[in-house]
């Protein structure tokens, strides 16, 4: 299994990562070697094997639904790169 530079660019775009042409080339080579190494998994017969998503018993313990205070707005916004009128500020999403 090998990955082309175009495929790497496409995947990086899906993940919202801008890569330099040099990074695209390097990752194409490195990810191809990793996938080649991982190809040994494809030889394992797993037709009768269920997947493991978590090692825990499937029923998660629930907590009582009791409201509790959350950190104040100013504290949350103090980490924001830009804020305005008590909200996060972002560039326009729509034209």
């Amino acid at each position: 299994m090998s990955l082309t530079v175009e495929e790497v660019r496409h995947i990086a775009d899906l993940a919202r990562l801008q890569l330099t042409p040099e990074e695209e080339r390097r990752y194409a080579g490195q990810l191809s070697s990793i996938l080649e190494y991982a190809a040994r998994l494809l030889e394992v017969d797993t037709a009768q094997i269920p997947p493991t998503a978590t090692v825990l018993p499937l029923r998660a313990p629930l907590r009582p639904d009791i409201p509790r205070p959350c950190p104040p707005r100013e504290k949350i916004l103090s980490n924001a790169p830009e804020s305005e009128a008590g909200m996060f500020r972002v560039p326009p999403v729509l034209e």
Partner: protein
Amino acid sequence: MTALTDLSLLEAASALRKGDVSSTELTEACLARIEALEPQLHAFLAQTPDLAISQAKIADQQLQEWRKKPEEPLPLTHGIPVAIKDVLCLEGVPTTCGSRILEDFRPPYSATSVSRLIDGGVVVLGKTNTDEFAMGSSTENSAYGTTHNPWDLNRVPGGSSGGSAAAVAARMCFAALGTDTGGSVRQPASFCGITGLKTSYGRISRYGLIAYGSSLDTVGALTRTASDLLPLFTAMAGHDPLDSTCMPDPVPEIRLDDSNLAGVRIGVPKEYFIEGIQAEVETAVRSAVEVFKALGAEIQEVSLPHTDLALPVYYLIAPAEASANLARYDAVRFGPRLKSEKLWDQYLKTRGALFGPEVKRRITLGTYALSAGYYDAYYGQAQKVRTLIKDDFETVFKEVDLIACPVAPTTAFRIGEHGDDPLAMYLEDVFTLPANLAGVPGMAFPVGFDRNDLPIGMQLNAPHLDELALFRAVHAYQTQTDWHLRKPDL
């Protein structure tokens, strides 16, 4: 006279109780040691001396009160200076995960593990270096520079909890918190000649642990001995309503007053002694197994037949989970922003520029493994093979109580040795990944030194939630050996 920083955590706790030393004196001794050694080691990303001194003064006042009523319980962690890996949130203190994308981030709350330790009276000296988002085995992936191994400054301390391991080995603190997703507590503990606990998945709350691989991430701790580790484990373990994967099972009371291992069955998996393992590592591990035998343990060879598949399984599952977890770094709510006219471009530019090479590699790999057309072949297949690996452990734990094996194929490697070859670096994790995939606990501890005077570690693994067995066995070993008492010449 023994330097204060050379005391074990338990010796320091005992001296605090007797009034032979104050928490402020212990804290000042650690801060002086950090100031002296930090330029060589770079174990810390943030130091919190003011916080530490104020916590120590409060701890001393409380100790004075306690001495009037010494029958009241007092945690052994009370007044003890510790360090915290920089992937665990501490309210108001910069928490970067070793990444530029979280530069200057100050968490609005503390991780449950951290706040439970603070409730137990610890003094926080600072945040320790880590591979970016805990992705790495050497701390070379930290955006803020590599930590150096206290035993040889030209070598890595291991990773990703390398800052914590170096700080404990160099006596900058009495204990440090780490996290273990694929070996990140055990491997640096091994490389630095100290004791490190990877807890069972679900034993300690992950609330406030900045997520990497959510089905694998565990909080752990590093100290010089198993007996020093115990008070930290006791303080942190147990259900947290804020983490639905934190198990409600009661945490057993563990006493380490018995070093007899009669009747304990230890399995040695043949798949862990493979070609490529450093001969001195194998010799040291096999000698340590003889020590367990002399302590009364029954030794038998066992088989974990799917061991060689753990590496490809891990390097599909962990990056897949990481690619989802790291989607939150969008330069909207926290972190620096590379401004753009359009939101879309802002995502691309900020994430492209501020994530480091290994993080971008894993996000790309994980996104690929989850993408349409490849999901079944890669991620789905990896999850099925994960079942086989987990079943291997369950089968073997019907026959034995513990599994004994090496932590890493070699002792600490040189800084830069793996260059830009990610697969070579991933192979460092070959013996530690299976425990994470199976969710079982493990403890790494020193069992010798190689010809370059570098520490050799080994690990024990136990069934899920049976940390008790690890503590008993490693403590017993440490009553018979003195590897854990050696310290680097700094």
